[in-house]
């Protein structure tokens, strides 16, 4: 199905096939990023919502310097929105178990899986702003400029947030491994994947 996307001034910017190309190119990594930004939410559902927004705001997407950064920016906003909704649902006791799609390669090793679980625990105490920067930079590999564009913040703010996020993550990871060492009787070296 061809779906023509037009800007508000009538100029044709992106077709649905163009957006589909972005979906094919960045869909997998965006879905993984969404699962890291909002671990309790179905990333597949969020990804579809992300590209629905992309289709509806094709003029903004077409005008963006980096479509990838633009898509990440929407992903961060959607994840934040879903996190707030999930917190609200938990507050009212309405949280229901949902099917969470597999977003990571089935070929990952046990060490990778254990590292993901440990890092997820370490990220949990972080504020949303710090976690977003940390995930995009350290795990998704986005450069600082792309993160600044995606979040709509100055580059320096990105680095500042990253600095504090790294500090907090490192401390939390060390604290978690120390606790694990005390309870398991293993050396910390043995505990680290």
């Amino acid at each position, binding site marked *: 199905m061809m779906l023509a996307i037009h800007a508000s001034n009538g100029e044709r910017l992106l077709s649905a096939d163009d957006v589909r190309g972005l*979906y094919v190119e960045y869909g997998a990594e965006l879905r993984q990023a969404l699962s890291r930004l909002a671990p309790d939410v179905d990333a597949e559902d969020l990804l579809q919502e992300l590209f629905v927004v992309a289709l509806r705001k094709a003029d903004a997407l077409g005008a963006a310097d980096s479509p990838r950064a633009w898509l990440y920016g929407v992903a961060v906003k959607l994840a934040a929105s879903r996190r707030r909704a999930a917190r609200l649902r938990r507050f009212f006791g309405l949280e229901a178990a949902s099917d969470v799609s597999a*977003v*990571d*390669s*089935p*070929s990952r090793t046990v060490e990778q899986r254990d590292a993901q679980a440990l*890092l997820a625990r370490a990220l949990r105490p972080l504020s949303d702003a710090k976690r977003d920067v940390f995930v995009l930079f*350290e795990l998704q*590999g986005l450069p600082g400029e792309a993160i600044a564009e995606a979040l709509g913040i100055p580059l320096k703010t990105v680095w500042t947030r990253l600095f504090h996020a790294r500090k907090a993550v490192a401390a939390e990871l060390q604290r978690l491994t120390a606790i694990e060492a005390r309870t398991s009787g293993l050396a910390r070296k043995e505990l680290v994947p």
Partner: protein
Amino acid sequence: MSEPRPWREAPADVPAEVARVVALAASVPPTPIDRAAWDDVLARAAAPRHDWRLVPAFVLSVLAGVALVLVVRPTPAPAPVVAHAAPVITPAPGASFSQEPAERIALRSGRLSVAVPTGGAVNVVTPHLELDVQRGRFLADVTESGTLVSVEEGEVVVRTPEGTRVLRAGESALWPPTPDIPQALLGQPAEAPSCAAAQGDAKLDCLSREASRNGLDAQAALYELGTLQLGAGDRRAAERTFRASLERFPRGVLHPEVRLSLLVELVRARRFAEAIAVARDFEAACADDPRASDVAALRRALEPRHAP
């Protein structure tokens, strides 16, 4: 100041165990995207949008509108309390009536006591008239000769073939009314010569004895006996006497007077149908009598009352 490098590329900046955890987590490749899922994206994009952010605004608008209406609208006067209680009907034994609906009563015969509460209404139809009551208590008594209405409370509107009038508490009306009887039809007292000397019970015994005979004395005795019985208030006996006289002496010397006495008595007793029959008999039997025109006028006055 140089830009920071990811930990996975510069593990020296961070404790080795931390760098390793992050590097391992970051190195997990994503599951390839299912290209067929793009159709689901298009389907969701084509679905109508529900902007839930507008819901709170909508709710607030509705609440504000309701509050505005409550504040601005004039306070209506309290609605009058209208009771729609059904009328309370108390029939006398033998009364014949029907109700359909409860506010419409057809009274064929007998007596009904009807109480209409405030706000109620009742319509009563009898063979002779029609009553409308908004509030009040009244009595309606239907006999063959007419309908008697007695108002105890409130007002009753009475509709008759001759017009409408309002009866108030304490008033009564009888329809049809008893017509005026022409003076010429009122019988003159007659005295049977054979019993003229007797008095009291002896006179009645004398007249009864004479009436059992034949001849003029018997006719005179029957007429005087009936008249005395009427005077004594014994209407049934008087009627029997007059009818016996007419049966025995239909063309007797006194048959016009006997007929007139019977006619007057029936009219006074409001037995209009029988009175009309007696009047017609008089007109046929006594066509040349000077009182025939008065009898005919009385009959004509009785006929519409008897047939409403």
